[in-house]
């Protein structure tokens, strides 16, 4: 079936059809992202004082990604303009640059920014134990300055101390071997074990060891019964972030532009002092806080949009599009304009995403 009005305007709308289509689609996209942004607003307004994190993202990298996305918005509109002027070689160059920008943006996100978050560890201290950790939180200093209090201690996780039951031994050994962890200390006849870990994910895996009640030789997983309680994590040992190493320093009152390196200070946090019955610890993943939950949701959906745009632009570089250009250059120009409108919208969303997550 031939789609009508690909170049000439439809009399009643005054527009070629794809343009009406893309704007209706973008209107629905505005509602989609609008819903998520209003979710952000809801979560942020509802957060108690001190519970909305600041300065956890890498601002220079975010700034660079913003500039890359803006540059790609310029090149895509130049690609369209080149097509309008029937400069096909130039069009292909601009299009290639746009695709490269999109891929760089996604690579920075997926290969650098997100994995860095997955390596980071944070634990929220419960209100009744805050005093014990004052040397890492500096709440007295913050109160004097009229700044919101700190409840979280962050850094890189080094070691966990666990308390295991007899039934856990085999599965625990499997986890330690499988993840290439190292036992540094054992006490109480092997029941209390200190284990060196590489990331918060290792600690999570250790905490999930439940041990089997039924015969471990049983092959059918449905016939195996697990205990409600298995390995219990007693404490965490972490290399502190600068902010928790020197919480009274005026430098740490506001987030810094260049992320500060880890300090060489080590802290031990007892699980019994952690909020939500000892469960308020994790890597910087969605379960960490409503901040990271909405951060990963919005940047993830935005990333999918970038990916979709890149795929469409790649299609415009294929021979099939060259063929269309030979037959009907204005049709290709209109297709590029429509994809460009989508791309600018993705850029526009990022213009809001960047300040609300990285800066404010």
């Amino acid at each position, binding site marked *: 079936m031939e789609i009508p009005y690909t*170049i000439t305007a439809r009399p009643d*709308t*005054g*527009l070629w059809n794809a*343009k*009406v289509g893309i*704007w*209706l689609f973008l*209107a629905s996209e*505005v*509602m989609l992202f*609008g*819903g998520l*942004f*209003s*979710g952000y*607003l*809801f979560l942020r*307004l*509802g957060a108690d004082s001190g519970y909305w994190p600041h300065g956890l993202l890498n*601002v220079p990298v975010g*700034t660079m990604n*913003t*500039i890359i996305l*803006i*540059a790609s*918005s*310029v090149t895509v*509109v*130049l690609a369209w*303009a080149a097509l*309008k*002027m*029937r400069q*096909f*070689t130039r069009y292909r160059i601009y299009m290639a640059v746009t695709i490269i920008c999109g891929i760089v943006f996604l690579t920075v996100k997926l290969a650098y920014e997100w994995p860095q978050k997955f390596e980071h560890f944070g634990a929220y201290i419960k209100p009744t134990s805050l005093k014990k950790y004052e040397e890492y939180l500096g709440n007295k200093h913050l109160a004097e300055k009229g700044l919101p209090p700190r409840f979280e201690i962050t850094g890189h996780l080094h070691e966990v101390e666990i308390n295991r039951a007899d039934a856990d031994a085999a599965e625990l050994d499997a986890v330690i071997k499988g993840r290439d962890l190292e036992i540094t200390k054992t006490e109480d006849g092997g029941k209390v074990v200190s284990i060196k870990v590489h990331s918060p994910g290792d600690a999570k895996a250790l905490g999930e060891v439940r041990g089997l009640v039924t015969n471990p030789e049983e092959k059918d997983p449905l016939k195996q019964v697990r205990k409600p309680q298995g390995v219990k994590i007693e404490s965490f040992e972490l290399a502190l972030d600068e902010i928790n190493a020197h919480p009274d320093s005026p430098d740490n009152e*506001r987030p810094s*532009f260049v992320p500060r390196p880890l300090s060489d200070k080590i802290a031990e946090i007892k699980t019994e002092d952690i909020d939500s019955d000892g469960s308020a610890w994790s890597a910087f993943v969605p379960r960490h806080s409503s901040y990271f939950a909405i951060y990963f949701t919005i940047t993830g959906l935005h990333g999918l949009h970038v990916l979709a745009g890149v795929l469409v632009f790649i299609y415009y570089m294929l021979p099939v599009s*060259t063929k269309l*250009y*030979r*037959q*009907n*250059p*204005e049709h290709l*120009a209109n297709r590029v304009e429509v994809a*460009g*409108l989508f791309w*600018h*919208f993705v*850029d*526009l969303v990022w*213009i*809001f995403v*960047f*300040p*609300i997550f990285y*800066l*404010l």
Partner: protein
Amino acid sequence: MSAPIEPHSTAPDAAHSAHDDVGKHVKLYLLIGGALIVCTVLTVALSYVNFNEWFGGGHNWNIIVAMIVATFKAGLVAAIFMHLLHEKWTIYRFLLLTVFFVIGLFALSILAFSDHIKQ
């Protein structure tokens, strides 16, 4: 690449009259791109200025300032890159409806925090 690819279209070609127009716009697009990058650097720089110390009043002024700059940037993208300065009324009508509903959406979020019993 071999010989430059030229279209052999016999269809009526509206583009040729628009050729000069588009050519003039290229400079504008580059200019706007530059302005957007400058605004990005500005947003980052302003976020390290403590506006609350200056203005006070219990509002988080840094958020207000950042949102003004972001809205300005978004306006540039929409008006120039997305050609909304010169668009047909059909599209303006779609967008007016969208703006209306988005404002409603945000109002719902804020409404959730209004407490009728305490007030």
